[in-house]
């Protein structure tokens, strides 16, 4: 990590700082939604615009990922009439997002798809991406199932600022000189904001280095159990920091049938219909096939195309959200085992 000047601010000073920032930036951070969770009285934590420091949830992993700021679950692309498509409004202000190391790294993967794949830049992604600066949140308490260190997503240098919550005050590290002038009135303190160095959970992330091996793995019996276990709900991919898939839908306003919107909506390879083509045929009918497709995208397909490592930052959200308690790291272990078997020539019928 680049070395930074660090300052210590009280909550009130942080709020002043955020207020000043809000003239230029829309600021997003993980925010606790009371009773927003799946089960009674459980909260959820979602990325939302914030005004004050106290709104930021520092001490629990967000339920849903940072990507929602860039690619909201439902996004209007165009407004149309019978004979014209007009792009939806661009964000006016610049954007500042609070995120942890894994969250910020996940945007590199989002960039890969939305800006690089096929050499085509997605207009709607780019127009917000260009305006974004990140504020790194440290992870003094890690959360159950975090394994960022196993996939190298524990370090980042994409942040402009870093913030560490310190019970009633905050350390702020400056990595981007654009922000220096906000701190002229404070004197620097000797404190370095750290990202995680080690996780309790260590995952030996499997490597699949060729398509033939990937294709052999598709035949492996390891996937079978998921027919009975996975319900194909898509919770894992919706909450995944690095999944990118979407659907496009047109809607008409009920009041005026001549105008409407073309929308982009988050989609998931785990959900029925994702691969359905004319005639009702689909290519992966069983949940074991869908789950296998998802896992192999994370482990194989993405890296085989871009050669930048797994499509995963080890944030642990997929497992945390799975209502059927399917552990992604446990699947990765089974996959490693299956790879060993195939390389060792074990036959399955």
């Amino acid at each position, binding site marked *: 990590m680049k070395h930074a000047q660090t300052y210590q601010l009280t909550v009130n000073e942080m709020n002043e700082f955020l207020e000043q920032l809000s003239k230029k930036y829309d600021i997003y951070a993980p925010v606790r939604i009371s009773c927003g969770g799946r089960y009674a009285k459980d909260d959820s934590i979602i990325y939302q615009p914030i005004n004050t420091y106290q709104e930021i949830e520092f001490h629990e992993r967000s339920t849903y990922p940072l990507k929602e700021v860039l690619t909201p679950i439902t996004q209007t*692309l*165009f407004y*149309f*009439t*019978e*004979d*014209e*498509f007009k*792009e939806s409004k661009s964000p006016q202000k610049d954007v500042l997002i609070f995120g942890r190391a894994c969250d910020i790294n996940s945007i590199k993967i989002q960039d890969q*798809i*939305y800006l690089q*794949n*096929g050499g*085509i*830049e*997605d*207009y*709607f*992604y*780019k*127009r917000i991406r260009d305006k974004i600066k990140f504020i790194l949140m440290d992870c003094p308490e890690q959360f159950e199932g975090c394994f960022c260190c196993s996939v190298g997503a524990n370090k980042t240098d994409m942040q402009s600022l870093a913030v560490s919550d310190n019970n009633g005050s905050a350390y702020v590290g400056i990595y981007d000189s654009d922000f220096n002038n906000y701190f002229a009135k404070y004197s620097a303190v000797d404190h370095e904001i750290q990202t995680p160095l080690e996780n309790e959970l260590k995952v030996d992330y499997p490597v699949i280095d060729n*398509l*033939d091996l*990937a*294709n052999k793995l*598709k035949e492996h019996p390891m996937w079978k159990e998921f027919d009975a276990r996975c319900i194909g709900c898509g919770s894992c991919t919706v909450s995944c920091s690095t999944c*990118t*898939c*979407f*659907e*496009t*839908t*047109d*809607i*008409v306003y009920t009041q005026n*049938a001549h105008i*409407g919107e*073309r929308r982009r909506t988050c*989609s998931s*390879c785990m959900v029925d219909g*994702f*691969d*359905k*083509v*004319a*005639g009702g*045929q689909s*290519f*992966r009918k069983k949940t074991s*096939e869908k789950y296998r*497709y998802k896992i*192999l*995208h994370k482990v*194989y*397909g*993405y890296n*085989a*195309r871009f050669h930048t490592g797994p499509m995963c930052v080890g944030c642990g959200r997929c497992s945390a959200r799975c209502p059927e308690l399917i552990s992604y790291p446990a699947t990765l272990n089974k996959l490693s085992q299956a790879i060993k078997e195939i390389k060792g020539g074990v036959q399955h019928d």
Partner: protein
Amino acid sequence: MTNNPVKPTACKLLDIMPQTQTEWTFRVKNNLPIKHGQFMQLSLPKVGEAPISISGFGDGYVDFTIRKVGKVTDGLFSLKKGDNIFIRGCYGNGWPTEQFKNKTVVIIAGGTGVSPVKSLVNMLCEHSNYARNIYLILGFKNSHSILFADELKKWQTASHFHVIYTLDDENYPGFKKGLVTDFIKEIPFASFDNEYECIIVGPPIMMKFVGMGLLMNKVPEKKIWMSFERKMSCGIGKCGHCRIDETYVCLDGPVFNYTIGKKLID
């Protein structure tokens, strides 16, 4: 920023040419350069978008042959000449036409699968010295589902064309009864001097069996080309629907050589 790859452009619908009850060809004004075998995203505001193969093109127009199967396609069928269709594209790699130069080309297509090769077949028909001989096996379900009847006649009479038209389960003048796979054995591969290429297009199951049929006739895998159809939403490698492992059908296909296509396991 003005370059928005998913923003469609309004284009005039020049003509509608019904082929069957549920398959019509739509001729749309267009001046963009096109390669045989590419597709475009057609859209109707309020209804949505659909990827459709280019079944023909010429000076100032592009043809789409569309089967009425659902929301968007139903919407397209309700248009009249002079209405606007919104299009974006072209997308996809198209057929490797350079490879076909001075070779015999074997084309086996079924049903709507004929439309992604139609413009290529027309080109090969009009330019009789581009390739050598053309062997064409086209199959349809029954007499009501025959597409491009006019072209079929034209191709039949072209001197460098050898055609077999089939219907799955009906006796009908000009057509043999049976599946396209039944007639692969009538193609004299041995006489082609190794200077040939094969094209397969149709429903996945048909492509699978035709592929097997060709291999049984000792056609080398690398001489076989096929066009894939997968669910597509964006056409530009973003939405993820068409992906198979590291391959995006919209970007890297829809045309694949058999050596690659056989490994594309969903």
